[in-house]
């Protein structure tokens, strides 16, 4: 659109023709109050708060629906406008309780701000206010009818934004009311309920305190919290979230999750897990003391005793039975720094490649299939702008809600085209231009078909007729964004990527679960891969002096335990016993150390259990499944827990490892910056040379995750991080693809075990979120087929 010039309050402004006046003013720093307008949703013009005077137009105009055009003249701040807005407020306040002192929104309420600004708190209404009791629509959504100003943001948010359509408007005029989709008459308890995805986006969009959150309501006031921007720990999307934190007697408690910082990859979105499921952090079952098994029972001990015990046992077992008798298992919610440190610890201190993690998607094949291709991996940001998208497997609505949100927004506002290929009727098919319903396990056949193997067609779908046309459509699509579900692994995944690589400008993302599952793979929590998908034995990590043969994978580690050849098992933030159904007896001859938040099915079998901090209680970085790196900041705090990072370092120390080699920290203590002994001197030296060259300060503490980040940046292919970008809380996209092909892509499906998480589950962590458990029970109770109904029109 060409730019047009117009005048607002005597200021000459320019904006593309058709821009809404309210947006043009916002850009120019002129504030126009708005209750019903919400960027990205359809226009409503219901509240009349945004009225402005336009020259030569008889009536006041609503800025939220007025597109700017050449030569227009507006006034937004005249006595007439002030009076009009004040009158609007008085009408809105006609039945509003103005109970700001107890309202959750108080202090963050658009109505409160405007009432204050325009001085409209007294009303000409003499009638008594019509009070209604607050309603609990679900464990997380509460509705306080008198506070509602009928702006319909929630209705549009739920319908257009979420494609759920759980909220509507009933009755009319002054008796109009927001109604949820389960009317009292149909509910067993004769109360209104909402049967929906429980995302809380309606609460977030509500400009007043009419919709409130089950976790946060009546708990605190906005100004009593500290607000920490960090990353959600749940699914692989890694939304930027702001945690509201308040101090308590034994630390700092997280009381709210929200997305007031809209600069993230998820814009204004958070799903129910990001918004409510932080409560595991405050769970009463958190372990807060190290435990050591004595005479068959886990007894609380001091940290010193626990570390000394582990250090001694690990050293003895390593020296007596060799590093290869160890197994190390990392987690999907560790920071990159922790994951990197853990594998470095395994490879250099213990001396084994027997390291793995619960792989929720085949990131290894993904990276290998893209060797030699640049700019082929997508960022989550691409889902907001791509013109065409193919979802091949997976179910973003349930597994990667932010991806689904971005796609819906992109389709709605930019007319993006969506193609869906799935064995199930996933919800996003409603937005799809074409939906190919595959036969069960038809992904491999479909990938082969796309690659030109027509004979595979009949194994992919029942009706092959249309399939060739679909393939032609994809082939004719430029810049296709291909989102791949975790069902695709090994050769099937490779085949699909091979097809995609023939399309000009196509980009890929492999969707997995948990905040740092890609980071875990990137950081080399793999038996055959060093960080950055570098094959073991590679020159790049020569300074590790680690074994050059691939180690045991997760299942093989447990096989070794069952066979009695595993002397020690070190598990950091993972619950393989539950996830892989490990027979507890098989671990009886293994010395097991577990770092975790709770006494999980794995922790109860351990010889030593160390209480760990969770992702909301530490700093570092994580990489979402797209490869977007983000900063994690410490928000909550809990007495008696330590970060996994610190614990790994302390254990290494008690094993008499050389800590400055493990964690390059300190300056000038042991090194002369390499000048006299050349670049082949010790690790700390080379690191210091690199630091100096990068204008970075040497780190002072061995517990500083950034010391390891420096090394990650120095060594891991693809992790050339922009520091300022990271530190200022912005995401950046990384492409850690291996530089050389090597290991054959295996077809062993059991290496990958998708988590199978849905909207209301989140692995083991989810077992300790009361809110998620409540929501699971709630969704079973409702049992209404609402989410399966098709959308209007």
């Amino acid at each position, binding site marked *: 659109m060409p730019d047009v010039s117009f005048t607002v309050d005597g200021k000459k402004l320019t904006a593309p023709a058709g821009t809404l006046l309210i947006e043009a003013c916002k850009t120019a720093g002129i504030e126009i109050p708005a209750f019903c307008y919400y960027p990205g949703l359809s226009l409503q013009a219901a509240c009349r708060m945004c009225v402005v005077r336009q020259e030569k137009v008889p009536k006041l105009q609503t800025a939220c629906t007025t597109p700017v055009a050449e030569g227009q003249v507006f006034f937004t701040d005249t006595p007439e406008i002030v009076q009009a807005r004040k009158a609007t407020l008085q009408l809105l306040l006609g039945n509003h309780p103005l109970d700001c002192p107890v309202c959750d929104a108080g202090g963050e309420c658009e109505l409160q701000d405007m009432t204050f600004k325009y001085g409209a708190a007294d009303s000409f209404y003499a009638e008594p206010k019509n009070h209604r009791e607050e309603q609990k629509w679900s464990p997380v959504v509460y509705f306080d009818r008198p506070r509602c100003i009928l702006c319909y943001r929630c209705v549009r948010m739920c319908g257009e934004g979420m494609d759920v359509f759980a909220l*509507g408007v009933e009755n009319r005029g002054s008796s109009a009311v927001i109604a949820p989709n389960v009317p009292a008459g149909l509910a067993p308890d004769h109360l209104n309920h909402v049967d929906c995805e429980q995302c809380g986006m309606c609460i977030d969009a509500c400009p007043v305190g009419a919709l409130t959150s089950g976790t946060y309501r009546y708990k605190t006031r906005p100004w009593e919290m500290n607000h920490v921007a960090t990353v959600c720990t749940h699914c692989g999307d890694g939304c930027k979230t702001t945690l509201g934190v308040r101090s308590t007697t034994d630390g700092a408690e997280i009381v709210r999750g929200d997305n007031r910082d809209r600069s993230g990859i998820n814009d204004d979105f958070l799903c129910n897990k990001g918004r409510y499921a932080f409560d595991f952090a405050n769970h009463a079952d958190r372990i807060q003391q190290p435990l050591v098994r004595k005479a068959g029972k886990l007894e609380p001990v001091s940290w010193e005793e626990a570390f000394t015990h582990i250090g001694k046992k690990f050293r003895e077992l390593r020296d007596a039975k060799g590093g290869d008798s160890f197994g190390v298992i990392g987690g999907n919610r560790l920071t990159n720094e922790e994951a990197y440190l853990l594998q470095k610890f395994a490879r250099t201190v213990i001396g084994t490649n027997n390291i793995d993690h619960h792989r929720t998607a085949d990131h290894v094949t993904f990276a290998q299939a893209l060797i030699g291709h640049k700019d082929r991996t997508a960022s989550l940001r691409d889902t907001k702008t791509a013109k065409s998208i193919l979802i091949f497997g997976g179910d973003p609505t349930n597994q990667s809600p932010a991806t689904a949100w971005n796609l819906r927004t992109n389709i709605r506002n930019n007319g993006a085209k969506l193609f869906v290929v799935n064995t199930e009727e996933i919800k996003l098919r409603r937005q799809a231009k074409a939906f190919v319903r595959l036969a069960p396990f038809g992904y491999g056949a479909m990938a082969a078909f796309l690659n030109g193997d027509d004979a595979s067609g009949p194994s992919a779908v029942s009706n092959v007729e249309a399939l060739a046309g679909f393939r032609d459509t994809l082939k004719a699509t430029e810049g296709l964004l291909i989102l791949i579900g975790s069902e695709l692994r090994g050769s099937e995944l490779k085949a699909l990527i091979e097809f995609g690589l023939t399309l000009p400008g196509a980009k890929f993302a492999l969707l997995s679960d948990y905040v740092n599952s890609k980071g875990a793979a990137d950081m080399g929590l793999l038996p055959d891969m060093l960080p950055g998908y570098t094959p073991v034995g590679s020159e790049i990590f020569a300074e590790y002096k680690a074994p050059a043969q691939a180690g045991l994978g997760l299942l093989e580690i447990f096989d070794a335990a069952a066979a009695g050849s595993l002397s020690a098992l070190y598990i950091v933030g993972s619950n393989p016993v539950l996830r892989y159904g490990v027979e507890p007896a098989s671990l009886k001859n293994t010395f097991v150390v577990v770092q975790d938040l709770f006494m999980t099915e794995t922790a109860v079998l351990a010889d030593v259990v160390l209480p760990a901090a969770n992702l909301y209680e530490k700093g570092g970085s994580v990489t979402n499944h797209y490869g977007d790196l983000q900063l994690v900041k410490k928000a909550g705090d809990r007495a008696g827990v330590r970060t996994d990072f610190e614990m790994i370092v302390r254990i290494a120390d008690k094993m008499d490892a050389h800590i400055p080699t493990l964690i390059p920290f300190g300056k000038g203590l042991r090194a002369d910056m390499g000048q006299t002994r050349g670049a082949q001197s010790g690790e700390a030296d080379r690191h210091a040379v690199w630091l100096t060259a990068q204008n970075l300060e040497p780190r002072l503490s061995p517990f500083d995750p950034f010391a390891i980040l420096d090394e990650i940046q120095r060594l891991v292919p693809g992790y050339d991080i922009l520091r300022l970008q990271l530190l200022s809380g912005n995401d950046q996209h990384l492409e850690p693809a291996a530089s050389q092909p090597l290991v054959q892509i295996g077809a062993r499906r059991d290496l990958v075990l998708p988590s199978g998480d849905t909207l209301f589950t989140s692995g083991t962590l989810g077992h300790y979120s009361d809110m998620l458990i409540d929501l699971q029970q709630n969704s079973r109770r409702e049992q209404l087929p*609402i989410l399966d*109904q098709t959308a*209007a029109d």
Partner: protein
Amino acid sequence: MSAIQNSIFTPETAARFDKLATIYPMKRSALVPMLLYAQDELGYISEPAITEIAKRLDLFDLDVRNVMSYYSMLRTKPAGKYNIQVCTNISCMLRGGYEILDHCKAKLGIGHKEVTADKMFSLEEVECIGACCWAPAMQVNYNFHDDLTTVKVDDIIEQYRQGLGKDVK
């Protein structure tokens, strides 16, 4: 063959609905007429009716409720056999509409939107029914009665009670 299996409506109404869903450029435009016909047949709009209509028009049940609750002439509870709607809008008000209403209330012993115990009569206060020239006016089901006096009302009610009045639905 009805578009819906096991329709709760009579075959004639079901067939009418099948047709209705096809004649508008946008399917959901058939919603209000469908609701009216459904009410005529069932006496009110029941939950199963909401569900079936939503299904016929590819809507959510909630969409149907949203529209339905906007219109005061659409009921979700059964009315009496004879639904008396007394107008109290301007012309009728000036010519004694409220007396007629009060008279009905006293006579039938029920208030606005209530039903007599024998389910014979229900009463509603309504806005202008378009009979201003002969105000005050009331409507019993779809039948008009105008130029009312309390005596005339007694007579009308009695006639319906005897089953003599026209029962047009």
